[in-house]
């Protein structure tokens, strides 16, 4: 695995203090932390939303200098909101992930996310979980080097949680770096690396097994035989 992402001093005032980060290709990374800890801010800062500081290099290329067509092949962001203001059809939403028209690739994604029956429905008429799938298909269609996905597993049923993890693993195997914000601690073992965040700062970075003991101080929960329980002092 080679180095894919090199971020220096990325920040987003006022939620994320400057931090350095390097990620390898084919790495599946979950950002873990309490509400407001800075997971979304880190994803947004890496996606270079207005106000984000520092530099982000993908395969050595400064993302801030890349034009749209190049950025599409370098990174993609799935924002936290699943709302689309306009009555656009599912297949057209997915197509917005590409610079030009490519019917074949859109159909391929529709098959991958089993959206065939919903392809001509307006996105606003779908359930939140179905919208998540359509928007995730949009975010993944250009097969960029870095996938920045804000809670892609939220609102998904058990089948789609596992199917989505499977899709993300396939992208990683193809060489991409996958970084997602994650709340469901039951899924952490599907990831190679966890980045723990607290108050807009990095609080830990390593494989799930090594990070697990820190969840007590991070979330106020502790592991039990069957899952997690609230840690009482």
């Amino acid at each position, binding site marked *: 695995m080679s180095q894919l992402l090199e971020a220096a001093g990325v920040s987003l005032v006022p939620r994320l203090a400057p931090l350095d980060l390097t990620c390898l290709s084919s790495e599946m990374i979950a950002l873990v932390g309490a509400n407001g800890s800075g997971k979304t801010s880190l994803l947004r800062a890496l*996606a270079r939303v207005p106000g984000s500081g520092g530099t982000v290099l993908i395969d050595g290329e400064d993302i801030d200098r890349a034009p749209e067509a190049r950025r599409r092949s370098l990174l*993609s*962001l799935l924002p936290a909101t699943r709302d689309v*203001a*306009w009555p656009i*059809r599912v297949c*057209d939403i997915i197509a917005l992930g590409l610079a030009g028209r490519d019917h074949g690739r859109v159909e391929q994604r529709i098959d991958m996310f089993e959206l065939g029956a919903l392809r001509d429905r307006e996105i606003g008429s779908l359930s939140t979980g179905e919208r998540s799938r359509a928007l995730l298909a949009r975010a993944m269609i250009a097969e960029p080097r870095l996938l920045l996905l804000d809670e892609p597993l939220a609102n998904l049923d058990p089948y789609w949680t596992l199917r989505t993890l499977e899709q993300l693993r396939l992208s990683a195997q193809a060489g991409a770096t996958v970084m997602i914000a994650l709340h469901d601690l039951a899924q952490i073992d599907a990831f190679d690396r966890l980045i723990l965040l607290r108050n807009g700062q990095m609080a830990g970075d390593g494989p799930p097994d090594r990070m697990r003991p820190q969840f007590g101080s991070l979330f106020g929960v502790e592991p039990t035989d069957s899952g997690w329980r609230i840690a009482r002092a």
Partner: protein
Amino acid sequence: MRLVLVLMVAILALIHLLTPTSLRALDPQLQTLLLIELRLPRTLLVIGYGATLGLTGAALQALFANPLASPDVTGSSSGAALGAVVGGYWLGLTEPLALAACGATGALAALAVLLAIAGWRAETSNLLLGGIGVSLACGAATSLVLALAPSPFAFYDAFDWLMGSFTDRSLGQASAALIPALVAGLLLARQSRVLDLLALGEDVAASLGHSPERIGRIVVGLSAIAVGACVSVCGAVGFVGLIAPYFGRRLTKGHPGQAMVPAALIGALLLLLADLATRAIDRPIPIGVITALVGTPLFLWLITHRRRGLGL
């Protein structure tokens, strides 16, 4: 579908230009002169203004991610009217192009105030309340300027123009309105793909290198120029900029950016129909009255449609 729209606009434009047929009785040379000096500016202005309203309405709606944004609802038409009134009655400007610049400045100021109040990606309530506030303030300021104007006939003189009128406009006035509107409109139409991307949210647009604030400045600036120039010559015409984009998006399967060009064609079509209606009535009726009479029920229908969550 676009071709059908273009054809319909062309046919209506010809009808608009050549009717009533009273000119036929005249000497051919005089006929041509009247056609070019009197009829042509009116037809061009109706088409151009209608297209401007449809296009800028669609652009503003895409920007604000809100189907109730439009030049009139955002207060930019009233701002443009105020700007042109200040230029014409206070500063004593008569040059059409100078008045168009005043109109554009007024529209820009109104949009800037609205943005300061409601913000980008405005919630419907903030957008509408902010727009009502800006419109009321501009309306009151326009009346004040006219009341304090040196000319005692300013009010009477301006009434016909403020409510929207295409009567007796010269070719010079038509070009002062239409050349800025055309240039701004073409530049706006180039933003269609970026405005479609904005449908996925500002963050997605930003991640692809399109600064949302820059898009906002471009759309607001160009819309103000186009609307300001038209309002300074033809007055404020309501509702077309609100309704045309809705039908435009119907033709582009909901894509807000791509809807700009169809919305422009539909806007031209609607205003041609409205102006033909004003001419069919024997008394001089401001065109703004006709568009408001037809537009208000449509607007109310849109709001109830939206309330029932049917999507726009």
